[in-house]
């Protein structure tokens, strides 16, 4: 594979983009990940804490199998993976072609700071005179025009904000290593030579060009011009024809010899136009007739500049594209009404700003103080700012704000203490995701967090106290006033302003709200073949949904490649590692190669002491110094040195980011790359340079040298003890099991089978399709039955899919990559299989109920029964004048204390259907919170416009249903009209919610735990949403959580993607940092088995040995530290190694 060309292009480096890239890379694709910002992580990099742990956990997104393919470190620092090529500060400028062969141009914004040269001393920041709002802190703080974009970035070198920079050059002269090149920016990089004998023409032409930012030099004669051309390079030459001595045409010819690539424009008087035209034959591209006006000149120069820029664009081909560009957030100050005076009152902030305020790395250092310095003790959150607002054209819910506000309230309590009063003003608390409702209850039970139903319009500052006063009416109409220190606006989503342009460029369509529109039933597919999307590109999503959709987009992109090429991903582990000489019995002989990063580190390195320290250890054979070890001549000479000196281990000291290169160097020199270690000597410099101001330069240098020495010594310890043990491997069975043949199971099976792997689908009932068999259309109006039919046919005719109906999985033994499965078929038949991964898609069903007289009163139906009745003409014969729907029946309270997510959408869907069938029917929906998240809000608006009446009820005043002669009478207290209503109705429809088809026996069979609500328990709610804790087992669809059809499809595709990460490998092998057992020392006390959080250890009773599944082991070392005599060892962190590290540390 051409490393220059990403096989699949991922645009957008937020959580979705990272997830999609990782999925694709881990299934054998090369990925080009392009991000416009100078850092990855998108919006999430600005949020420190996430539901439900109220901490981070982003690192759990990293691969757990074959971990060495990437960097094992906090993802906020950056992402590194063998197969992911990352382009930061880069834009996609052009896309053409078709699936399988998209030709894409990428343009990188100049940073003006050479990251190799920059040692992060910050001298530039001190002298920069420009202050501008810091985007990363949501504009709450100021930064200089030269700055570090995100606080965590791994190298975190400085860059210049071209929009803010005044090109004053102060930083250039302040930089001790000459790392700053202002001319790199934009037109400054375009060098123009103006050649004219007339000074006035020469000067004015140059002046006009310089004013526009071009880099210009002048020559007064042909000879001078040729001299300049010989000494440096130019992109464009403006060449006068009529000059004394050598004329323009002659200069042109000679210039083309010296610099064949130069673009030449002839300048000519009207009389010599003929000559100019002649000159074109000698290689000039255009001519300007003197006198010319600046516009003429500049437009011509600009045209060639654009061509120059485009020529510099990186051109890649991609088989498929995944778009994860995210969404923008609503800016209340951009709204002319701006009633909450955001941007005017400093105490009114957006939720994003509040996140930055909470961040210890943010502008407030994590402390909540008012502008007047008083501690913040009362905060109001105002929901739906910019959402659900028809006046703003926002007929949608932004889906994530409710949870963000709850989280922020809880975090604020952590910061400000228990006495913080946190009030959340809402219209509906849309806590309809997995675990959301419980989280809200947690917030409520914590006390001091009040949920107030009411929309707040404006805030009035009180002159004396500086408080903000707001007015609202309680549901029962009582007017209330409250004062706060801070008001947080839960700002909603907006499509990115570039969306129309992007839609045109990539050829996808937009929905009515300006977000990318997906295919019905497949949220990760755009209308353009080969182009997929994930995350908030199609409307704000939380992390869990983004991660799921990113995996789904990845599987679809990967499938595109498979289907087009008829070839399946290369197995990752087929690439041959040449055999290396076995040096395990030899004493360590280390060659240490120290790099000064182009002399950038010379200022602070004490070479003599480095040599002295290293030489103390007899294991060190040689110490060599290099200037630029990672490339060119130095790289080659290192290879030569290794070949000549025959060390058996290689220690390099350089930037951490070069570690990969030195692994390659080791291989090139015939060494095992596992015996090469890179010591990071950049970070110590950064740290020392930024140390306390009290220290003088000499002291800082000393400190710097000390820290570098420690880093090198540590590296020595690591490399000395490095072991090239052959990784243990588990052979993978390239076959998948899918339990359940509903839409989730079928979708997952198709995604896997389309990649060329056989799939066994086991279905309990006698037909496939699950719940889709009774659903006729979606809220969006899409017909379900044709879709089901299409999928059913695809599954049944797929040569690699075998469906077993009336069958049940009885046992799953073994481990990731190799499960033994038993399936009981009809008539007591039993089938045995071997599978590499297992997907659980057993679904769920509408909960049954006996509440409100269901089962005894024929007028009381469930939503499913209504759907069936509506389509079976059972109702058609009846005249309906009134229908009452009751939501949350047996839901969102013990014992089923969760929201089933789909019921409100279903109620609205049915209400609209009833209205179209019986225009005069009166429909009442009795609800607790209408969960019409995202774009389904518009259906809610529609239903209200159709006259459906929505009446909120609370748990302590539930509706009552009394049987009546015909139908029933429903009594409900309407808090808005503050009285009890009695509604005579023909039918009562109950939304009973979803219960998963997942018994504790199923849990035991699949080795999967159940969550408190008896759904499939995922390994991590946010970052590994379809993985079970047990490696190799995945869960999707409504056995995992209540979902709509298209969400189910996405989760099934995500599960397929995860399963493919195993199936695409021939073996699962251990990574560098993996635990091993020293059997001769082991007492089989099995403490390690209990300590292992990944179930990677078992007692092999036959061999009487503890066995580690090296693929499942994550190298956490829980085993090693509980083992009393270091019989459990983590490679790379063995006790002798750590002891030596401690020795170094206390020296």
């Amino acid at each position, binding site marked *: 594979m051409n490393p220059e060309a990403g096989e699949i292009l991922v645009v957008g480096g937020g959580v979705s983009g990272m997830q999609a890239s990782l999925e694709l890379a881990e299934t054998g694709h090369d990925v080009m990940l392009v991000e416009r910002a100078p850092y990855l992580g998108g919006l999430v990099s600005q949020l420190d804490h996430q539901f439900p742990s109220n901490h981070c956990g982003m690192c759990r997104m990293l691969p757990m199998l074959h971990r060495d393919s990437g960097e094992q470190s906090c993802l906020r620092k950056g992402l590194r993976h063998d197969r992911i090529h990352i382009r930061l500060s880069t834009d996609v400028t052009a896309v053409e072609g078709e699936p399988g062969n998209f030709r894409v141009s990428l343009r990188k914004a100049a940073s003006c700071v050479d990251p190799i040269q920059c040692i992060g001393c910050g001298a530039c920041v001190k002298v920069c005179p420009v202050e501008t709002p810091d985007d990363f802190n949501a504009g709450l703080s100021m930064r200089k025009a030269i700055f570090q974009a995100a606080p965590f970035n791994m190298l975190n070198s400085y860059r210049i904000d071209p929009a803010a920079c005044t090109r004053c050059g102060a930083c250039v002269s302040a930089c001790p290593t000459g790392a700053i090149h202002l001319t790199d920016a934009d037109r400054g990089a375009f060098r123009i030579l103006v050649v004219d004998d007339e000074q006035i023409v020469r000067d004015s032409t140059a002046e006009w060009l310089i004013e526009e930012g071009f880099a210009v030099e002048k020559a007064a004669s042909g000879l001078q011009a040729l001299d300049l051309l010989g000494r440096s390079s130019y992109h464009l030459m403006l060449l006068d024809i009529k000059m004394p001595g050598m004329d323009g045409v002659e200069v042109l010819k000679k210039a083309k010899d010296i610099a064949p690539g130069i673009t030449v424009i002839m300048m000519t008087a009207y009389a010599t136009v003929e000559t100019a035209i002649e000159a074109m034959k000698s290689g000039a591209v255009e001519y300007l007739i003197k006198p010319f006006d600046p516009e003429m000149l500049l437009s011509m120069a600009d045209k060639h500049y654009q061509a120059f820029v485009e020529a510099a664009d990186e051109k890649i081909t991609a088989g498929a594209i995944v778009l994860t560009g995210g969404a923008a957030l609503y800016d209340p100050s951009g709204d002319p*009404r701006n*009633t909450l005076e955001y941007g005017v009152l400093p105490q009114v902030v957006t939720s994003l700003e509040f996140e930055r305020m909470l961040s210890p790395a943010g502008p407030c250092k994590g402390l909540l103080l008012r502008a007047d310095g008083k501690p913040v003790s009362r905060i109001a959150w105002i929901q*739906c700012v910019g959402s*659900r*607002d*028809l*006046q*703003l054209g926002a007929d949608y819910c932004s889906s994530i704000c409710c949870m963000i506000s709850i989280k922020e309230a809880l975090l604020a309590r952590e910061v400000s203490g228990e006495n913080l009063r946190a009030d959340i003003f809402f*219209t509906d608390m849309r806590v309809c995701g997995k675990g959301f409702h419980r989280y809200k209850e947690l917030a409520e039970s914590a006390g001091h967090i009040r949920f107030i*139903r*009411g*929309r*707040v*319009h*404006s805030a009035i500052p009180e002159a004396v106290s500086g408080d903000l006063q707001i*007015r*609202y*009416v309680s*549901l029962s*109409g009582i*007017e209330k006033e409250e004062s706060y220190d801070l008001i947080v606006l839960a700002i909603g989503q907006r499509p990115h302003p570039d969306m129309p342009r992007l839609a045109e460029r990539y050829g996808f369509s937009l929905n009515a709200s300006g977000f990318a529109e997906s295919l019905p039933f497949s949220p990760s597919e755009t209308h353009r073949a080969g182009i997929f999307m994930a995350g908030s590109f199609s409307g704000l999503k939380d992390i869990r949904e983004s991660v799921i959709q990113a995996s789904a987009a990845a599987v679809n992109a990967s499938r595109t490649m498979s289907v087009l090429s008829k070839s399946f991903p290369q197995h990752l582990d087929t690439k041959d590692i040449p055999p290396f000489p076995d040096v395990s019995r030899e004493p360590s002989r280390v060659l240490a190669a120290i790099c000064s990063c182009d002399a950038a580190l010379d200022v602070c390195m004490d070479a003599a002491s480095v040599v002295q320290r290293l030489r103390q250890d007899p294991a060190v054979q040689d110490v060599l110094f290099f200037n630029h070890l990672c490339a060119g001549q130095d790289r080659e000479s290192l290879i030569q040195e290794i070949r000549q000196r025959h060390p058996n281990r290689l220690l390099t000291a350089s930037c951490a980011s070069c570690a990969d290169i030195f692994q390659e160097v080791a291989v090139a020199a015939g060494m095992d790359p596992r015996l090469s270690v890179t010591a990071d000597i950049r970070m110590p410099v950064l740290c020392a340079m930024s140390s306390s101001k009290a220290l003088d330069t000499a002291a800082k240098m000393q400190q710097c040298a000390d820290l570098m020495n420690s880093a090198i010594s540590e590296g020595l310890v690591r490399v000395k003890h490095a072991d090239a043990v052959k990784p243990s491997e588990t052979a993978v069975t390239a076959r998948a099991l899918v339990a359940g043949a509903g839409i989730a199971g079928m979708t997952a099976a198709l995604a896997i089978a389309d990649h060329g792997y056989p799939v066994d689908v086991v279905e309990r009932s006698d037909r496939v399709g699950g719940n889709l068999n009774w659903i006729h259309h979606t809220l969006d109006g899409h017909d379900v039955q044709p879709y089901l039919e299409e999928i059913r046919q695809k599954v049944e005719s797929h040569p690699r899919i075998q469906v077993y109906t009336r069958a049940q999985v009885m046992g799953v033994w073994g481990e990731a990559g190799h499960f033994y499965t038993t399936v009981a078929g009809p008539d007591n038949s039993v089938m045995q299989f071997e599978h590499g991964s297992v997907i659980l898609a057993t679904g769920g069903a509408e909960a049954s109920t006996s509440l409100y007289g269901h089962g005894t009163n024929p007028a009381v139906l469930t939503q499913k029964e209504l759907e069936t009745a509506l389509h079976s003409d059972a109702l058609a014969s009846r005249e309906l004048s009134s229908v009452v729907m009751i939501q949350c029946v047996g839901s969102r309270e013990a014992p089923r204390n969760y929201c089933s997510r789909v019921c409100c959408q279903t109620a609205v869907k049915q209400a609209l259907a009833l209205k179209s069938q019986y225009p005069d029917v*009166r429909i009442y929906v009795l609800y607790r919170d209408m969960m019409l998240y995202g774009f389904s809000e518009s259906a*809610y*608006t529609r239903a*209200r*416009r*159709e*006259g459906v*009446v*929505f009446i*909120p009820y609370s748990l302590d005043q539930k509706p009552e249903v009394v049987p009546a002669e015909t139908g029933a009478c429903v009594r409900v207290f*309407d808090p*808005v*009209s*503050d009285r009890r*209503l009695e509604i005579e109705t023909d039918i009562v429809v109950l939304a009973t919610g979803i219960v998963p088809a997942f018994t504790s026996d199923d849990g035991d069979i699949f080795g999967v735990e159940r969550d408190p609500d008896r759904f499939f328990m995922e390994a991590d709610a946010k970052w590994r949403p379809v993985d079970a804790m047990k490696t190799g087992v995945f869960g999707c669809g409504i056995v995992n959580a209540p979902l709509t059809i298209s969400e189910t499809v996405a989760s099934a595709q995500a599960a397929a993607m995860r399963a493919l990460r195993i199936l695409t490998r021939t073996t699962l092998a251990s990574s560098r940092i993996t635990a091993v057992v020293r059997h001769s020392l082991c007492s089989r006390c099995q403490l390690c088995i209990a300590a292992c959080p990944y179930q990677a250890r078992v007692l092999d009773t036959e061999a009487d040995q503890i066995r580690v599944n090296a693929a499942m082991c994550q190298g956490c070392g829980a085993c090693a530290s509980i083992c009393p005599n270091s019989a459990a060892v983590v490679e790379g962190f063995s006790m002798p190694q750590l002891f030596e590290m401690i020795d170094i540390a206390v020296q």
Partner: protein
Amino acid sequence: MKDAENVQLAEALAPIRDMVKACIQCGTCSASCPNAFAMADTPRRLWRMLQAGEVQMVLKSGSFTLCSACYTCTLRCPRGLPLTDAMSALKQVVAHQDALRFASTTLFYRKFMESVRRHGRVRETEFMCLYLTAMKNPLLPFQFAPLGLKLFSRKKLDFRPPSKGGDARMDALFQKVHELENAP
């Protein structure tokens, strides 16, 4: 109440109900209304009554008569509903209904307009005389006496008869409005 009457009322209120059907009961209108403190039922509740087809309750409540048409609610409604229009439509309905309950309100309005019609502007003294006479409550004038005296002392009341009256310059205008209002 008789059913027929109810049906007629429901028909009259149907267009108003349509105006507020999309209300999500967020309460912005009620929190914003400067007169809400005096209303027995907040605007939000009125919309809810309309939604639920509780026409009699709407009329019984009468809170809409307190709407001063400041348009704050309309401006602020996140659903973009024409709430002030709905209020004034309700007033019109009751005006047409001639309901006894709204006698004083509608009378006040009618006498006010009568004065305007006659003079092209309101003449407070004449208007109050018309109104108080029409109210047929001999005690009523005394209730207004203190206010009247105060206004008089500040020269806000003019007891002189209108120098010129009844030139009927406004008649055509009023006639046209009347025609428009009663147009089908």
